[in-house]
């Protein structure tokens, strides 16, 4: 197996507070890898470093064998890393379809082809019927799906999902889980940050647990979720 994403000892400090300290892990081609941990554990910071939104203070990040730490987020996106935002950021005044066309324009030079890609992607995420709506008029679950659709339309090799299930009802969660599983079956590698354990256990082949910025456990779901350190620091508190 070759690692699509290889994180090696990355750290980030904010004014002396260690948000992420010396975290290392590999995401293999074709897997669904989950990062879990309590609020403030540094999950989103870790994510932002991978996506290039903030540079790491130390350590290396390699994507498809290429070092990407320190690149701008648009450069990393063009290499094939798609991302969503924890607090969804659709282009509010544009239609659902235009939102996704903008993503699709990363893989094609013509608007016509981008429209085709956008429509396929929207159909896949059950948003096709809402394509003419203005993005800001969508409900939260739809906006979350739009966020995924836009990232997906860029044609990523690796999809970074930042809490896309948070705030969704269980039926909606199951819908997204099914879609993600489909995408993964078609070869998409997914790295997700998630609080909803129902989704994590349903999707992830491996899990990394962050606590106070440090990795305290890594492995397959059965191992990790039975790990005493994990139960104490995270799951116990969430009474699972």
């Amino acid at each position, binding site marked *: 197996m070759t690692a699509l994403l290889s994180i090696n000892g990355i750290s980030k400090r904010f004014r002396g507070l260690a948000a992420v300290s010396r975290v290392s892990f590999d995401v293999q081609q074709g897997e669904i890898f989950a990062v879990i941990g309590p609020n403030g554990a540094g999950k989103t910071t870790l994510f932002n470093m991978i*996506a290039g939104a903030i540079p790491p203070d130390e350590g290396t990040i390699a994507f498809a064998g290429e070092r990407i730490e320190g690149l701008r987020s648009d450069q990393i996106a063009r290499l094939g890393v798609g991302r969503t935002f924890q607090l969804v950021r659709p282009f509010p005044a544009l239609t659902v379809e235009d939102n996704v066309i903008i993503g699709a324009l990363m893989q094609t030079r013509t*608007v016509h082809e981008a429209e085709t890609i956008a429509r396929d992607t929207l159909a896949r995420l059950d948003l096709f019927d809402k394509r003419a709506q203005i993005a800001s008029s969508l409900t939260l679950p739809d906006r979350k799906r739009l966020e995924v659709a836009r990232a997906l339309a860029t044609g990523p090799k690796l999809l970074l999902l930042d809490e896309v299930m948070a705030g969704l009802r269980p039926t909606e969660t199951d819908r997204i889980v099914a879609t993600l599983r489909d995408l993964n079956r078609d070869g998409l590698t997914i790295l997700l940050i998630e609080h909803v354990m129902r989704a994590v256990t349903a999707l992830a082949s491996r899990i990394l647990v962050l606590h106070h910025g440090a990795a305290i456990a890594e492995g397959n779901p059965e191992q990790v979720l039975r790990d005493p350190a994990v139960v104490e620091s995270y799951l116990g508190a969430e009474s699972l």
Partner: protein
Amino acid sequence: MSNIWQRLPTRGKILCLAALVAAIAAPLVADRYLLSVLILVFYFAYLGQAWNLLMGFAGQLSLGHALYLGLGAYTATALWTLFGIGPWIGVFIAIPVAAAAGMIVGWLGWRFAIEGVYFALLTIAFAEFTRIGFDHLQITGASAGLFLSVNSPGSDKWWNLGGGPLLYYYLALILAAAATLLVAWLRRSPLGYRWLAVREDPEAARAAGIDIFRAKMIAILISASMTAVGGVFYGFYYRNLFPSQVFDIGRSIEIIMAPIIGGLGTVFGPLVGAILLTPLGESLTALMQHFGVNTPGAKSIFYGLTLMVIITLQPSGVWPWLARKLGLDRPRA
């Protein structure tokens, strides 16, 4: 290009053609005064398109477009008066001069993360100190102004951009129509989509692989270049240039009125705004004269009040509302 036409609903096609025919035929019925008003309508529609490209589409507020207008006007006019180089050639020198100025403003602002109102202040600053520079530039007449002679040989010929109102009328009409077409085409181009993304959410735009600095630089490059062409028109239409007028912040503000009133970020907004505003100003002047009101500033007060009413009633501009009324709006206009 043909794509833009096909996307228009039938009613829109008819309306576009009718407006175009009316505009072409207008000199048959319009007197000299009405023609001069129409020239201004198209002149402001054209400049509005240029500014709207940067603000309405790429979301970058410039309050200093007088800089590009003035540089365009001064470059072409000076080339003619000093070296006898005609405006049809001069315009191709005026464009890169203004474009370079735009690139400098854009680079300084966006490279150093000066955004929003701070960027707007930067654009004002550049226009202001260019004005002061030209006030002291002896070769272009400094603050005493630069004049185009009206009786030197060949100065009234179209190839030297001189002549009667008809020439300026059709020239302004062509500029406005071409700019509207260009903007309509850009709006549906990959570049147009990138601008909208940058305007809506720069961070999300980056995540979609867009180099936002590059997108904004292209926007200011095109916007400044178009404005420079408007400047050449200004220079040869008015035939006199004063730094205190052409680089004045008032110039910058009058450029941005039509697109704001007409509808920011819409293709037809600048056109509709100019059609409303220019005659409004003119008819207010006429009304004041008619009723013998000559209190200083009275016209400005009524003009300002009218703008306030329009903005209050239609905050997103007149065109989106008008398009709905005319049944021209489509889910993705």
